[in-house]
Protein backbone atom coordinates (compact mmCIF):
# COMPACT_ATOMS: atom_id res chain seq x y z
CA UNK A 1 0.00 0.00 0.00
CA UNK A 2 1.12 3.47 -0.72
CA UNK A 3 1.20 4.41 2.93
CA UNK A 4 2.71 1.17 4.17
CA UNK A 5 5.53 2.92 5.94
CA UNK A 6 3.13 5.00 7.95
CA UNK A 7 5.21 8.07 7.14
CA UNK A 8 3.36 10.05 4.51
CA UNK A 9 5.95 12.63 3.68
CA UNK A 10 5.65 14.41 0.38
CA UNK A 11 8.60 13.95 -1.95
CA UNK A 12 11.49 16.29 -1.57
CA UNK A 13 10.31 19.26 -3.61
CA UNK A 14 13.78 19.96 -4.97
CA UNK A 15 13.67 16.60 -6.74
CA UNK A 16 10.72 17.36 -8.95
CA UNK A 17 10.78 19.30 -12.13
CA UNK A 18 7.61 21.28 -11.48
CA UNK A 19 8.45 23.41 -8.50
CA UNK A 20 5.95 26.24 -8.90
CA UNK A 21 3.44 27.03 -6.16
CA UNK A 22 0.58 25.67 -8.25
CA UNK A 23 2.50 22.51 -9.01
CA UNK A 24 3.01 21.82 -5.34
CA UNK A 25 -0.67 22.11 -4.62
CA UNK A 26 -1.71 19.88 -7.51
CA UNK A 27 0.85 17.35 -6.44
CA UNK A 28 -0.36 17.30 -2.84
CA UNK A 29 -3.93 16.91 -4.00
CA UNK A 30 -3.22 13.77 -5.98
CA UNK A 31 -1.28 12.15 -3.11
CA UNK A 32 -4.01 12.91 -0.61
CA UNK A 33 -6.67 11.61 -3.00
CA UNK A 34 -4.71 8.40 -3.65
CA UNK A 35 -4.02 7.70 0.00
CA UNK A 36 -7.60 8.46 1.08
CA UNK A 37 -9.01 6.23 -1.65
CA UNK A 38 -6.70 3.43 -0.54
CA UNK A 39 -7.93 4.05 3.01
CA UNK A 40 -11.58 3.80 1.93
CA UNK A 41 -10.79 0.58 0.08
CA UNK A 42 -9.07 -0.85 3.15
CA UNK A 43 -12.04 0.07 5.32
CA UNK A 44 -14.43 -1.53 2.81
CA UNK A 45 -12.46 -4.77 2.98
CA UNK A 46 -12.82 -4.78 6.76
CA UNK A 47 -16.61 -4.96 6.43
CA UNK A 48 -16.87 -8.59 5.22
CA UNK A 49 -14.08 -9.55 7.61
CA UNK A 50 -16.21 -8.30 10.49
CA UNK A 51 -19.61 -9.32 9.10
CA UNK A 52 -18.53 -12.95 8.81
CA UNK A 53 -18.69 -13.25 12.60
CA UNK A 54 -22.41 -12.36 12.65
CA UNK A 55 -24.87 -15.26 12.88
CA UNK A 56 -24.79 -17.41 9.76
CA UNK A 57 -27.85 -17.87 7.54
CA UNK A 58 -28.72 -21.26 8.99
CA UNK A 59 -28.60 -19.87 12.52
CA UNK A 60 -30.75 -16.89 11.58
CA UNK A 61 -33.32 -19.04 9.80
CA UNK A 62 -36.30 -19.15 12.16
CA UNK A 63 -36.90 -22.74 13.12
CA UNK A 64 -40.00 -23.90 14.92
CA UNK A 65 -40.56 -26.36 17.73
CA UNK A 66 -43.67 -28.46 18.19
CA UNK A 67 -44.63 -29.21 21.80
CA UNK A 68 -47.22 -31.82 22.71
CA UNK A 69 -48.81 -30.70 26.00
CA UNK A 70 -51.42 -33.46 26.25
CA UNK A 71 -49.48 -35.28 28.93
CA UNK A 72 -48.61 -32.24 31.03
CA UNK A 73 -50.66 -32.31 34.26
CA UNK A 74 -51.51 -29.11 36.14
CA UNK A 75 -48.51 -28.11 38.22
CA UNK A 76 -46.11 -29.92 35.92
CA UNK A 77 -43.68 -28.41 33.47
CA UNK A 78 -41.66 -29.79 30.59
CA UNK A 79 -38.42 -28.60 29.07
CA UNK A 80 -37.83 -28.47 25.35
CA UNK A 81 -35.36 -26.79 23.00
CA UNK A 82 -36.25 -23.78 20.87
CA UNK A 83 -33.62 -22.35 18.50
CA UNK A 84 -30.86 -23.77 20.62
CA UNK A 85 -32.21 -22.41 23.90
CA UNK A 86 -34.19 -24.13 26.68
CA UNK A 87 -37.96 -23.73 26.58
CA UNK A 88 -40.24 -24.13 29.62
CA UNK A 89 -43.85 -25.22 29.12
CA UNK A 90 -45.84 -25.27 32.36
CA UNK A 91 -49.51 -26.02 33.02
CA UNK A 92 -50.61 -23.89 35.95
CA UNK A 93 -52.85 -25.20 38.73
CA UNK A 94 -56.01 -23.21 39.63
CA UNK A 95 -54.28 -22.10 42.85
CA UNK A 96 -51.28 -20.83 40.94
CA UNK A 97 -53.54 -18.95 38.51
CA UNK A 98 -55.36 -17.35 41.41
CA UNK A 99 -52.08 -16.39 43.11
CA UNK A 100 -50.69 -14.95 39.91
CA UNK A 101 -53.85 -12.95 39.24
CA UNK A 102 -53.81 -11.63 42.80
CA UNK A 103 -50.28 -10.33 42.19
CA UNK A 104 -51.16 -8.62 38.88
CA UNK A 105 -51.28 -5.25 40.64
CA UNK A 106 -48.22 -5.79 42.80
CA UNK A 107 -45.14 -3.60 42.51
CA UNK A 108 -42.97 -5.30 39.84
CA UNK A 109 -39.83 -4.38 37.96
CA UNK A 110 -41.38 -5.39 34.63
CA UNK A 111 -45.16 -5.15 35.13
CA UNK A 112 -47.36 -7.59 33.20
CA UNK A 113 -50.64 -9.30 33.96
CA UNK A 114 -51.06 -13.06 33.85
CA UNK A 115 -53.42 -12.62 30.89
CA UNK A 116 -50.73 -10.78 28.95
CA UNK A 117 -48.24 -13.49 29.81
CA UNK A 118 -50.49 -16.33 28.64
CA UNK A 119 -51.94 -14.71 25.55
CA UNK A 120 -55.45 -14.93 24.13
CA UNK A 121 -57.36 -18.19 24.28
CA UNK A 122 -54.83 -19.72 26.64
CA UNK A 123 -56.09 -20.44 30.13
CA UNK A 124 -53.30 -22.24 31.89
CA UNK A 125 -50.22 -22.99 29.77
CA UNK A 126 -47.26 -20.72 30.42
CA UNK A 127 -44.59 -20.87 27.73
CA UNK A 128 -41.32 -19.08 28.43
CA UNK A 129 -37.71 -19.36 27.43
CA UNK A 130 -35.69 -21.01 30.17
CA UNK A 131 -33.12 -18.24 30.04
CA UNK A 132 -32.63 -15.93 33.02
CA UNK A 133 -32.75 -12.36 31.75
CA UNK A 134 -29.86 -11.44 34.02
CA UNK A 135 -26.89 -13.29 32.52
CA UNK A 136 -28.46 -16.21 30.73
CA UNK A 137 -28.37 -19.14 33.18
CA UNK A 138 -31.19 -21.70 33.14
CA UNK A 139 -33.51 -21.04 36.12
CA UNK A 140 -34.66 -23.90 38.36
CA UNK A 141 -38.31 -24.68 38.97
CA UNK A 142 -39.39 -26.52 35.85
CA UNK A 143 -38.21 -29.92 37.03
CA UNK A 144 -39.84 -32.00 39.73
CA UNK A 145 -38.64 -30.98 43.20
CA UNK A 146 -36.47 -28.09 42.07
CA UNK A 147 -36.16 -24.89 44.04
CA UNK A 148 -38.98 -22.63 42.85
CA UNK A 149 -37.77 -19.56 44.69
CA UNK A 150 -39.58 -17.23 47.04
CA UNK A 151 -42.45 -16.61 44.63
CA UNK A 152 -43.16 -20.26 43.80
CA UNK A 153 -42.18 -19.88 40.12
CA UNK A 154 -38.62 -20.06 38.91
CA UNK A 155 -35.37 -19.41 40.72
CA UNK A 156 -32.06 -18.72 39.05
CA UNK A 157 -29.26 -20.11 41.23
CA UNK A 158 -26.49 -18.20 39.50
CA UNK A 159 -27.22 -14.79 40.98
CA UNK A 160 -30.46 -15.30 42.93
CA UNK A 161 -33.24 -14.02 40.67
CA UNK A 162 -36.73 -15.02 41.80
CA UNK A 163 -39.53 -15.30 39.23
CA UNK A 164 -43.16 -15.83 40.17
CA UNK A 165 -45.67 -18.37 38.86
CA UNK A 166 -46.12 -16.34 35.67
CA UNK A 167 -42.36 -16.05 35.08
CA UNK A 168 -42.30 -12.39 36.16
CA UNK A 169 -39.18 -11.06 37.88
CA UNK A 170 -39.95 -10.27 41.51
CA UNK A 171 -36.62 -10.25 43.30
CA UNK A 172 -32.96 -10.33 42.37
CA UNK A 173 -30.80 -8.77 39.65
CA UNK A 174 -32.66 -9.87 36.48
CA UNK A 175 -34.02 -6.80 34.64
CA UNK A 176 -37.04 -8.29 32.81
CA UNK A 177 -39.52 -11.17 32.95
CA UNK A 178 -38.70 -14.50 31.35
CA UNK A 179 -39.26 -14.02 27.64
CA UNK A 180 -42.41 -15.46 26.07
CA UNK A 181 -41.71 -16.63 22.50
CA UNK A 182 -44.21 -16.40 19.67
CA UNK A 183 -46.40 -19.47 19.55
CA UNK A 184 -49.74 -20.76 18.34
CA UNK A 185 -51.96 -23.74 19.07
CA UNK A 186 -51.78 -26.13 16.17
CA UNK A 187 -54.41 -28.27 17.87
CA UNK A 188 -55.78 -28.48 21.39
CA UNK A 189 -52.74 -30.36 22.55
CA UNK A 190 -49.93 -29.39 20.13
CA UNK A 191 -48.28 -25.99 20.38
CA UNK A 192 -46.10 -24.66 17.62
CA UNK A 193 -43.43 -22.33 18.98
CA UNK A 194 -41.76 -19.93 16.57
Amino acid at each position, binding site marked *: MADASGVATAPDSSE*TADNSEEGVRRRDWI*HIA*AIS*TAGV*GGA*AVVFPLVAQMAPTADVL*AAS*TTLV*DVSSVEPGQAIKDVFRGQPLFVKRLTPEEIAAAKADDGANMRDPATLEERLGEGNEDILITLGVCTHLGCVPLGAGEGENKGEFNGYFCPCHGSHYDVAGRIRKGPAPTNLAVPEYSFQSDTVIRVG
Partner: protein
Amino acid sequence: MTIRLGGIIFGLVLCGILVLWSMVPGIFNYATPEKPDYYAFQEENIQPAGGFAFDGPLGKWDYAQLQRGYQVYKEVCSACHSMKYVAFRNLEQLGYTEAEVRAEAATWSVPGIDPTTGEETTRPGEPTDQFPSPYPNEVAARIANNNALPPDLSLITKARKDGVNYVYSLMLGYNEPDPEDVAKSPDFETPSGLYFNEYFYNINIAMPPQLYPDLITYADGTEATPEQMAADIAAFLTWTAEPSLVQRKQTGWFVIGFLAFATFLAFMSYKQIWAGKKGKKKKA
Protein backbone atom coordinates in the same frame (compact mmCIF):
# COMPACT_ATOMS: atom_id res chain seq x y z
CA MET B 1 39.67 -24.66 -9.35
CA THR B 2 39.32 -25.59 -13.00
CA ILE B 3 40.19 -29.21 -12.23
CA ARG B 4 37.56 -29.35 -9.49
CA LEU B 5 34.95 -27.82 -11.75
CA GLY B 6 35.89 -30.17 -14.55
CA GLY B 7 35.57 -33.12 -12.21
CA ILE B 8 32.13 -32.06 -11.09
CA ILE B 9 30.96 -31.56 -14.64
CA PHE B 10 32.36 -34.94 -15.69
CA GLY B 11 30.54 -36.65 -12.82
CA LEU B 12 27.32 -34.89 -13.64
CA VAL B 13 27.55 -35.79 -17.30
CA LEU B 14 28.08 -39.41 -16.28
CA CYS B 15 24.98 -39.24 -14.06
CA GLY B 16 23.09 -37.59 -16.90
CA ILE B 17 23.97 -40.41 -19.27
CA LEU B 18 22.78 -42.99 -16.74
CA VAL B 19 19.52 -41.12 -16.21
CA LEU B 20 19.05 -40.78 -19.96
CA TRP B 21 19.61 -44.50 -20.31
CA SER B 22 16.84 -45.10 -17.80
CA MET B 23 14.51 -43.19 -20.10
CA VAL B 24 15.21 -45.37 -23.12
CA PRO B 25 12.25 -47.75 -22.48
CA GLY B 26 9.92 -44.75 -22.48
CA ILE B 27 11.27 -43.52 -25.78
CA PHE B 28 10.95 -47.01 -27.23
CA ASN B 29 7.34 -47.21 -26.09
CA TYR B 30 6.67 -43.89 -27.72
CA ALA B 31 8.13 -45.05 -31.02
CA THR B 32 5.83 -48.08 -31.08
CA PRO B 33 2.57 -46.85 -29.64
CA GLU B 34 -0.46 -49.02 -29.09
CA LYS B 35 -3.45 -47.04 -30.23
CA PRO B 36 -6.49 -48.13 -28.22
CA ASP B 37 -9.73 -48.58 -30.15
CA TYR B 38 -12.75 -47.39 -28.27
CA TYR B 39 -15.82 -45.35 -28.82
CA ALA B 40 -14.77 -41.92 -27.55
CA PHE B 41 -17.23 -39.90 -25.56
CA GLN B 42 -18.27 -36.43 -26.65
CA GLU B 43 -16.15 -33.94 -24.70
CA GLU B 44 -17.72 -30.86 -26.26
CA ASN B 45 -21.07 -30.24 -24.63
CA ILE B 46 -24.03 -28.75 -26.44
CA GLN B 47 -25.86 -25.81 -24.96
CA PRO B 48 -29.35 -24.40 -25.33
CA ALA B 49 -29.86 -21.79 -28.04
CA GLY B 50 -29.10 -18.38 -26.59
CA GLY B 51 -27.28 -19.80 -23.59
CA PHE B 52 -28.38 -19.12 -20.02
CA ALA B 53 -29.50 -15.90 -18.36
CA PHE B 54 -26.71 -16.12 -15.79
CA ASP B 55 -23.93 -16.51 -18.38
CA GLY B 56 -21.33 -13.80 -18.71
CA PRO B 57 -20.15 -11.12 -16.32
CA LEU B 58 -23.53 -9.33 -16.40
CA GLY B 59 -25.58 -12.50 -15.99
CA LYS B 60 -28.70 -12.53 -13.83
CA TRP B 61 -30.96 -15.32 -12.60
CA ASP B 62 -34.06 -16.04 -14.65
CA TYR B 63 -36.33 -16.72 -11.67
CA ALA B 64 -39.14 -18.21 -13.77
CA GLN B 65 -36.64 -20.69 -15.21
CA LEU B 66 -35.22 -21.52 -11.77
CA GLN B 67 -38.74 -22.20 -10.48
CA ARG B 68 -39.43 -24.45 -13.47
CA GLY B 69 -36.11 -26.18 -12.83
CA TYR B 70 -37.09 -26.75 -9.22
CA GLN B 71 -40.30 -28.35 -10.46
CA VAL B 72 -38.26 -30.69 -12.70
CA TYR B 73 -36.02 -31.60 -9.78
CA LYS B 74 -38.97 -32.26 -7.52
CA GLU B 75 -41.03 -34.26 -9.98
CA VAL B 76 -38.25 -36.11 -11.81
CA CYS B 77 -34.77 -36.06 -10.29
CA SER B 78 -35.62 -36.20 -6.60
CA ALA B 79 -36.87 -39.77 -6.94
CA CYS B 80 -33.24 -40.91 -6.98
CA HIS B 81 -30.98 -37.89 -6.39
CA SER B 82 -30.45 -36.09 -3.11
CA MET B 83 -29.62 -32.39 -2.81
CA LYS B 84 -28.33 -32.32 0.73
CA TYR B 85 -26.54 -28.96 0.85
CA VAL B 86 -29.70 -27.03 -0.07
CA ALA B 87 -32.33 -26.12 2.53
CA PHE B 88 -35.99 -25.35 1.85
CA ARG B 89 -35.43 -21.83 3.19
CA ASN B 90 -33.03 -21.24 0.28
CA LEU B 91 -36.01 -21.45 -2.09
CA GLU B 92 -36.94 -17.93 -1.00
CA GLN B 93 -34.06 -16.81 -3.23
CA LEU B 94 -36.00 -18.19 -6.22
CA GLY B 95 -38.74 -15.66 -5.68
CA TYR B 96 -41.07 -17.67 -3.47
CA THR B 97 -42.57 -15.95 -0.44
CA GLU B 98 -41.93 -17.16 3.09
CA ALA B 99 -45.43 -18.65 3.29
CA GLU B 100 -45.00 -20.42 -0.05
CA VAL B 101 -41.70 -21.89 1.11
CA ARG B 102 -43.30 -23.09 4.34
CA ALA B 103 -46.10 -24.74 2.37
CA GLU B 104 -43.64 -26.21 -0.14
CA ALA B 105 -41.43 -27.60 2.62
CA ALA B 106 -44.43 -29.27 4.19
CA THR B 107 -45.05 -31.27 0.99
CA TRP B 108 -41.74 -33.09 1.58
CA SER B 109 -41.29 -35.59 4.33
CA VAL B 110 -38.04 -35.45 6.22
CA PRO B 111 -36.57 -37.78 8.83
CA GLY B 112 -37.73 -37.03 12.35
CA ILE B 113 -38.17 -38.59 15.75
CA ASP B 114 -41.53 -39.52 17.16
CA PRO B 115 -41.78 -37.47 20.39
CA THR B 116 -43.92 -40.09 22.11
CA THR B 117 -41.89 -43.18 21.33
CA GLY B 118 -38.46 -41.84 20.35
CA GLU B 119 -38.49 -43.97 17.23
CA GLU B 120 -37.26 -42.75 13.89
CA THR B 121 -40.09 -41.60 11.70
CA THR B 122 -40.83 -38.90 9.15
CA ARG B 123 -42.48 -35.54 9.54
CA PRO B 124 -43.44 -32.74 7.15
CA GLY B 125 -40.48 -30.52 6.19
CA GLU B 126 -39.82 -27.13 7.76
CA PRO B 127 -38.11 -24.26 5.95
CA THR B 128 -35.01 -24.84 8.06
CA ASP B 129 -34.66 -28.46 6.95
CA GLN B 130 -32.26 -29.57 4.24
CA PHE B 131 -33.69 -31.41 1.24
CA PRO B 132 -34.08 -35.06 2.27
CA SER B 133 -32.27 -37.91 0.57
CA PRO B 134 -34.49 -40.42 -1.26
CA TYR B 135 -32.50 -43.28 0.27
CA PRO B 136 -31.55 -43.83 3.90
CA ASN B 137 -27.94 -44.71 2.98
CA GLU B 138 -25.56 -45.55 0.16
CA VAL B 139 -26.21 -49.28 0.29
CA ALA B 140 -29.95 -48.75 -0.14
CA ALA B 141 -29.30 -46.33 -3.00
CA ARG B 142 -27.09 -48.83 -4.81
CA ILE B 143 -29.52 -51.72 -4.33
CA ALA B 144 -32.34 -49.64 -5.76
CA ASN B 145 -30.26 -48.56 -8.76
CA ASN B 146 -28.60 -51.67 -10.14
CA ASN B 147 -25.47 -51.03 -8.03
CA ALA B 148 -25.05 -47.48 -9.35
CA LEU B 149 -25.01 -44.57 -6.91
CA PRO B 150 -27.05 -41.54 -8.01
CA PRO B 151 -24.79 -38.60 -7.11
CA ASP B 152 -25.94 -35.77 -4.88
CA LEU B 153 -27.01 -32.91 -7.14
CA SER B 154 -26.28 -29.90 -4.90
CA LEU B 155 -22.86 -29.28 -6.43
CA ILE B 156 -23.09 -31.21 -9.65
CA THR B 157 -22.58 -28.26 -12.01
CA LYS B 158 -19.38 -27.31 -10.18
CA ALA B 159 -18.22 -30.90 -9.87
CA ARG B 160 -18.15 -31.47 -13.63
CA LYS B 161 -16.17 -29.73 -16.31
CA ASP B 162 -18.39 -27.14 -18.02
CA GLY B 163 -21.06 -28.38 -15.60
CA VAL B 164 -24.11 -26.41 -16.76
CA ASN B 165 -23.81 -27.49 -20.36
CA TYR B 166 -22.80 -30.97 -19.23
CA VAL B 167 -26.08 -31.44 -17.39
CA TYR B 168 -27.99 -30.09 -20.38
CA SER B 169 -26.10 -32.35 -22.80
CA LEU B 170 -26.37 -35.43 -20.61
CA MET B 171 -30.13 -35.06 -20.26
CA LEU B 172 -30.46 -34.91 -24.05
CA GLY B 173 -27.58 -37.24 -24.89
CA TYR B 174 -29.44 -40.57 -25.16
CA ASN B 175 -28.98 -40.80 -28.93
CA GLU B 176 -28.30 -43.76 -31.15
CA PRO B 177 -24.57 -44.58 -31.40
CA ASP B 178 -22.91 -43.36 -34.58
CA PRO B 179 -22.64 -46.50 -36.79
CA GLU B 180 -19.31 -45.35 -38.24
CA ASP B 181 -17.74 -44.99 -34.83
CA VAL B 182 -19.24 -48.29 -33.73
CA ALA B 183 -17.62 -49.99 -36.73
CA LYS B 184 -14.26 -48.57 -35.69
CA SER B 185 -14.60 -49.81 -32.10
CA PRO B 186 -14.55 -53.59 -32.06
CA ASP B 187 -15.38 -53.82 -28.35
CA PHE B 188 -18.37 -51.54 -28.56
CA GLU B 189 -21.44 -52.74 -26.76
CA THR B 190 -23.88 -51.28 -24.29
CA PRO B 191 -24.09 -53.67 -21.32
CA SER B 192 -27.56 -54.60 -20.16
CA GLY B 193 -28.83 -52.27 -17.45
CA LEU B 194 -26.81 -49.39 -18.86
CA TYR B 195 -27.77 -46.83 -21.45
CA PHE B 196 -25.78 -45.30 -24.26
CA ASN B 197 -25.10 -41.61 -23.63
CA GLU B 198 -22.25 -40.07 -25.58
CA TYR B 199 -21.75 -37.21 -23.08
CA PHE B 200 -21.06 -39.56 -20.18
CA TYR B 201 -17.34 -40.22 -19.73
CA ASN B 202 -17.55 -43.95 -20.38
CA ILE B 203 -20.54 -43.63 -22.75
CA ASN B 204 -22.61 -46.15 -20.76
CA ILE B 205 -24.61 -44.59 -17.98
CA ALA B 206 -26.74 -46.32 -15.38
CA MET B 207 -29.40 -43.61 -15.41
CA PRO B 208 -32.18 -44.37 -17.90
CA PRO B 209 -33.37 -41.57 -20.20
CA GLN B 210 -35.55 -39.26 -18.13
CA LEU B 211 -37.07 -36.51 -20.20
CA TYR B 212 -40.02 -37.11 -22.52
CA PRO B 213 -42.29 -34.50 -24.06
CA ASP B 214 -44.95 -33.31 -21.61
CA LEU B 215 -43.48 -35.41 -18.81
CA ILE B 216 -44.51 -32.71 -16.38
CA THR B 217 -46.98 -29.86 -16.51
CA TYR B 218 -45.22 -26.59 -15.76
CA ALA B 219 -46.98 -24.36 -13.28
CA ASP B 220 -46.36 -21.35 -15.53
CA GLY B 221 -47.77 -23.07 -18.62
CA THR B 222 -44.47 -23.36 -20.50
CA GLU B 223 -44.46 -26.25 -22.95
CA ALA B 224 -42.50 -29.11 -21.41
CA THR B 225 -40.24 -30.19 -24.26
CA PRO B 226 -37.16 -32.24 -23.34
CA GLU B 227 -34.94 -29.31 -24.36
CA GLN B 228 -36.93 -26.95 -22.13
CA MET B 229 -36.77 -29.28 -19.15
CA ALA B 230 -33.06 -29.98 -19.68
CA ALA B 231 -32.26 -26.26 -19.82
CA ASP B 232 -34.43 -25.57 -16.74
CA ILE B 233 -32.86 -28.28 -14.61
CA ALA B 234 -29.36 -27.23 -15.69
CA ALA B 235 -30.15 -23.65 -14.66
CA PHE B 236 -31.65 -24.77 -11.35
CA LEU B 237 -28.64 -26.95 -10.56
CA THR B 238 -26.36 -24.02 -11.29
CA TRP B 239 -28.21 -22.11 -8.62
CA THR B 240 -28.01 -24.98 -6.12
CA ALA B 241 -24.26 -25.28 -6.72
CA GLU B 242 -23.59 -21.60 -6.30
CA PRO B 243 -26.47 -19.52 -4.87
CA SER B 244 -24.15 -16.51 -4.61
CA LEU B 245 -23.29 -16.52 -8.35
CA VAL B 246 -25.14 -13.34 -9.33
CA GLN B 247 -24.30 -11.49 -6.12
CA ARG B 248 -20.68 -12.44 -6.70
CA LYS B 249 -20.58 -10.97 -10.19
CA GLN B 250 -22.33 -7.79 -9.10
CA THR B 251 -19.93 -7.34 -6.20
CA GLY B 252 -17.11 -7.94 -8.66
CA TRP B 253 -18.14 -5.03 -10.85
CA PHE B 254 -18.26 -2.74 -7.88
CA VAL B 255 -14.88 -3.90 -6.55
CA ILE B 256 -13.15 -3.64 -9.91
CA GLY B 257 -14.63 -0.22 -10.58
CA PHE B 258 -13.36 1.03 -7.25
CA LEU B 259 -9.95 -0.56 -7.77
CA ALA B 260 -9.65 1.00 -11.22
CA PHE B 261 -10.33 4.42 -9.74
CA ALA B 262 -7.93 3.91 -6.83
CA THR B 263 -5.23 2.51 -9.13
CA PHE B 264 -5.58 5.48 -11.47
CA LEU B 265 -5.10 7.90 -8.58
CA ALA B 266 -2.17 5.89 -7.26
CA PHE B 267 -0.62 5.88 -10.72
CA MET B 268 -0.95 9.67 -11.02
CA SER B 269 0.57 10.02 -7.57
CA TYR B 270 3.41 7.72 -8.61
CA LYS B 271 4.01 9.76 -11.78
CA GLN B 272 4.18 12.98 -9.73
CA ILE B 273 6.61 11.50 -7.23
CA TRP B 274 8.93 10.15 -9.91
CA ALA B 275 8.81 13.22 -12.15
CA GLY B 276 12.38 14.41 -12.42
CA LYS B 277 13.86 11.11 -11.23
CA LYS B 278 13.38 9.39 -14.58
CA GLY B 279 16.34 9.83 -16.82
CA LYS B 280 16.61 9.29 -20.55
CA LYS B 281 15.69 5.67 -21.05
CA LYS B 282 18.82 3.88 -22.17
CA LYS B 283 18.54 0.33 -23.26
CA ALA B 284 19.76 -1.73 -20.36
